């Protein structure tokens, strides 16, 4: 009865029944012919995504790990055992595996000259960094969630920024701030205080980690704080609880899971930290990741792989423990009335209100020093020399571009490579991320597994991905007698795409999850194949999230260092972060100038993506 609406009024069943039916069938067949491609599109995209992940992530990473258990063609756990029982890596506890008694190990741990080993030190600095990040992040969450002031929304969005800033650039900023001739010493000197050298100290590394992770802690905690229902607090108050008591009994329990999430992620991130430590700590403060890099440079692949695997195991173990916790403690509240915000300038000044504001002002000074000073110092350092303001560092970049030898890093080439890789990896990461987001927001058996497999790139260090791509794809694979190899540039794009697409997933998936299921079902009932429903209905509705994901993926590519430095060494495929690292090894000035170039390119790209996305929202 496809024609029901026309035939309806004048005697509907005039036509013979069989004619109607066969007409209908033809109608349906032509439709399915036209839709056949579209129908398979989502499946094809999913298959392509899985295939790509296998080729550019799982296979290369697997080859790295095979290296660690396959020594001279023989399967062995010796490399692992050597690492686990070496006090150089695992400190005093390693002696347990080496056969020493528990008593002597405990004695060793208690003695003043105990050894932590590289893994111990890595965990130690990660723990310190976590404490610093939480300490620095919580006041920000309090400020953002509970106070109203001009620029609050902007500040809240800015908390995402450190996360996408190229880490090597941040490291340059920290060198410019805390170095011997850095801005900190300049400020201290103005007050007649002696110079301090924080560079290559644990303190500098911890502060730099806080720069990255405190905003993360602030973000998740703010979100949790904003989802506390005011009526729950009001109920507690009406039942006789003091404001402090209501906070302790009602608000705090809802914040704890988020604070723990921020802390857990911070610990995992800083446990596998690389560029920051490489630039600010050097090899004397080597963390596991830095040491993996060093082993790779020394061509000790088996040991590097084993160490990286152990690191991955620890990271995943922590993440798993956290996720177990989260699953038990997540409370979803919807349709809540959030707690009202107080004005930052108190309407009725009381001593309490005044003290609170003084405290917040003090925090603001610390926050400025940690978050703004490094960037400001980098910009300042790029235009100053021993004799005051100068453009010498930029001139150096131009000279290097025009007269540099072929083995030297040329700035424009780095900019061009970065942009090229950024665009290419965005083109791969965006559809991949969207497809994975679609796959992980639908309900089916094994969804969790798909989610985990798709998110694994977040947990595996860039060094390992880079090494795997280098050894697995760039050096080539023997397939049926022919050697298949990809160019370094392709491998870099692959590594960047793999690093970036989880962020697309993470921004797009919640949006898709929030799209009313009946919208998609309506589209499908109206004849839209699944992929058309995605393109016509879901994506337009979550477009801001798609744009944000694109910006993320691009920024990740621009700032990616770990995999790129492995893949680009000895080639002309260096990117801006790699260039900065080359410069920083010699002189700070050109590195800061290059850092400013990176900052400008990143910012402009971000604005461009935002603008492009914004114009498309209306389609």
């Amino acid at each position, binding site marked *: 009865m496809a024609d029901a*609406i026309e035939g*309806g009024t004048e005697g509907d069943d005039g036509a013979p029944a069989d004619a109607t039916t066969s007409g209908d069938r033809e109608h349906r067949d032509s439709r399915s012919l036209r839709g056949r491609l579209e129908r398979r599109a989502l499946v094809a995209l999913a298959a392509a995504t899985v295939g790509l992940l296998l080729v550019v992530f799982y296979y290369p990473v697997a080859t790295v790990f095979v290296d660690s258990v396959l020594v001279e063609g023989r399967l062995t756990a010796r490399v692992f055992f050597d690492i686990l029982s070496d006090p150089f890596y695992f400190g005093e506890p390693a002696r347990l595996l080496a056969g020493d008694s528990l008593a002597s190990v405990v004695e060793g741990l208690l003695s003043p000259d105990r050894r932590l080993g590289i893994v111990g030190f890595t965990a130690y600095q990660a723990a310190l960094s976590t404490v610093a990040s939480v300490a620095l992040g919580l006041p920000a969450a309090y400020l953002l969630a509970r106070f109203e002031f001009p620029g609050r929304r902007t500040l809240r969005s800015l908390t995402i920024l450190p996360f996408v800033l190229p880490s090597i650039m941040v490291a340059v900023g920290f060198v410019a701030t805390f170095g011997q001739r850095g801005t900190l010493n300049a400020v201290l000197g103005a007050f007649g205080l002696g110079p301090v050298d924080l560079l290559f100290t644990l303190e500098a590394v911890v502060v730099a980690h806080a720069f990255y992770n405190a905003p993360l802690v602030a973000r998740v905690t703010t979100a949790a704080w904003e989802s506390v229902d005011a009526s729950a607090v009001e109920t507690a108050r009406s039942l006789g609880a003091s404001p402090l008591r209501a906070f302790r009994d009602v608000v705090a329990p809802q914040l704890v899971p988020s604070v723990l999430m921020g802390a857990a992620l911070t610990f995992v991130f800083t446990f596998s930290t690389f560029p920051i430590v490489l630039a600010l700590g050097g090899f004397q403060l080597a963390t596991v990741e830095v040491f993996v890099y060093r082993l790779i440079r020394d061509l000790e692949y088996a040991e590097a792989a084993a160490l990286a695997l152990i690191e991955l195991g620890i990271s995943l173990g922590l993440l798993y423990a956290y996720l177990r916790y989260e699953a038990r403690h997540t409370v979803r509240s919807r349709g809540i009335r959030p707690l009202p915000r107080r004005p930052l300038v108190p309407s009725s000044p009381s001593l309490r209100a005044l003290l609170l504001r003084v405290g917040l002002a003090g925090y603001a000074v610390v926050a400025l020093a940690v978050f703004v000073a490094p960037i400001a110092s980098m910009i300042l350092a790029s235009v100053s020399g021993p004799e005051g303001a100068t453009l010498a560092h930029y001139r150096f970049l131009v000279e290097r571009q025009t007269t540099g030898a072929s083995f030297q890093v040329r700035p424009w080439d780095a900019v061009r490579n970065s942009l090229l890789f950024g665009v290419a990896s965005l083109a791969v990461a965006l559809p991949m991320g969207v497809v994975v987001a679609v796959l992980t927001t639908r309900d089916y058996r094994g969804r969790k597994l798909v989610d985990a497999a798709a998110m694994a790139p977040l947990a595996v260090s860039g060094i390992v991905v880079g090494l795997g791509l280098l050894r697995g794809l760039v050096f080539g694979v023997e397939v049926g007698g022919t050697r298949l190899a990809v160019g370094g540039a392709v491998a870099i794009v692959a590594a960047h795409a793999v690093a970036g697409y989880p962020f697309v997933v993470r921004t797009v998936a919640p949006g898709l999850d929030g799209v009313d299921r009946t919208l998609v079902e309506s589209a499908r009932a109206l004849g839209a194949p699944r992929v058309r429903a995605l393109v016509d209905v879901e994506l337009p509705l979550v477009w801001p999230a798609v744009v944000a994901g694109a910006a993320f993926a691009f920024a990740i590519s621009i700032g990616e260092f770990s995999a790129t430095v492995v893949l680009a060494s000895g080639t002309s495929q260096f990117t801006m972060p790699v260039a900065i690292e080359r410069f920083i090894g010699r002189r700070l000035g050109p590195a800061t100038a290059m850092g400013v170039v990176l900052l400008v390119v990143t910012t402009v790209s971000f604005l461009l993506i935002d603008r492009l996305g914004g114009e498309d929202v209306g389609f």
Partner: protein
Amino acid sequence: MRTLASERPPGEDGGDDGPPAVSLDGVTRRYGETTAVSDLSLSVREGEFFTLVGPSGCGKTTTLRLIAGFEEPTAGTVRFGGESVAGVPPEDRDVGVVFQNYALFPHMAVGENVAYGLRFTDPPGGGSAEERVADLLDLVDLGGMADRDPDTLSGGQQQRVAMARALAPGPDVLLLDEPMSALDAKLRERLRVQVREIQQELGITTVYVTHDQEEALAVSDRVAVLNDGRAEQVAPPRTVYRRPATEFVATFVGDNNVFTGDVTAVRTDDGRRLADVAVGDATFTVALDADADAASVTVRDRLTVCVRPERLAVDAGRNELTADVTSAEFLGETTRVHLDWVGREILLRAEDPPEGTVTVGFDPGDAHVVDGH
């Protein structure tokens, strides 16, 4: 038990004109441990307005989703025009769906919403997509609204846009999932008349899901009363109301007084079969004819009978019971009176509510046997 899925329709409409438009054959849908739909068999005739009614959780929406193809049955077969549609995705089933929340695409204007289905098929009956959209908006009294944003429309208007959108591609079957439940009572009554008129005008096979038994009775050709994933009764509205097949139907559709007791005597009087049923200390005489179930009743059977509150009369009727008035609800044209009869609640409809202790009664023909064995 009597799952009257295959109850004969009344009148000349014998059901011999080809296969049913939609049929469910022993359909079961499980979600893990819970069974939403259990061994359900139904058939919806061509051009029929068929309503699935039942309390929340009875499986009515799941049944609709199984027909639409959003879910596949765990067991059993869904057929369209006699052919199984197992594995056929929703976009190929030629169904139009209207959801409770209307699910209008918020990023498209009203006209684009209605035109969306025409992206995948040509407008039925020739003509252009624009004409089709205009015709349908006229049909639902929203002519000239094509450029409006859905969120500038009232709930009732959105509901009609959803109807127009579902009808635009010329579906074989229209599926309506509680399309009125978000609207206020007055608007609901007006819209259900309009929906029925459109359905009649187009002659389109319609499956309508509602939890509102009054709505179900008002608009449907036939009603399926669902409970716990099973059909308790499938029949035209009048039959469902007057001759409920089960105690559940008797109490779900409208108010009812239900008595259960042992049969003490069966006799024939003036051509009618009558049974005496001992309920508590009283004995009621009820008529047994007209019900297949009731025909086989014999002494010592346990019988469940129901009597509508409006069939109870004060100080009248052959079967009498004396009860205390406990409360009265004024409903406008009538009053619902709650009585206490030796610990049982009795409902009575009255224009002038009695007070204190009253004697009410009913005749044997006012009682309907819902269960006897």
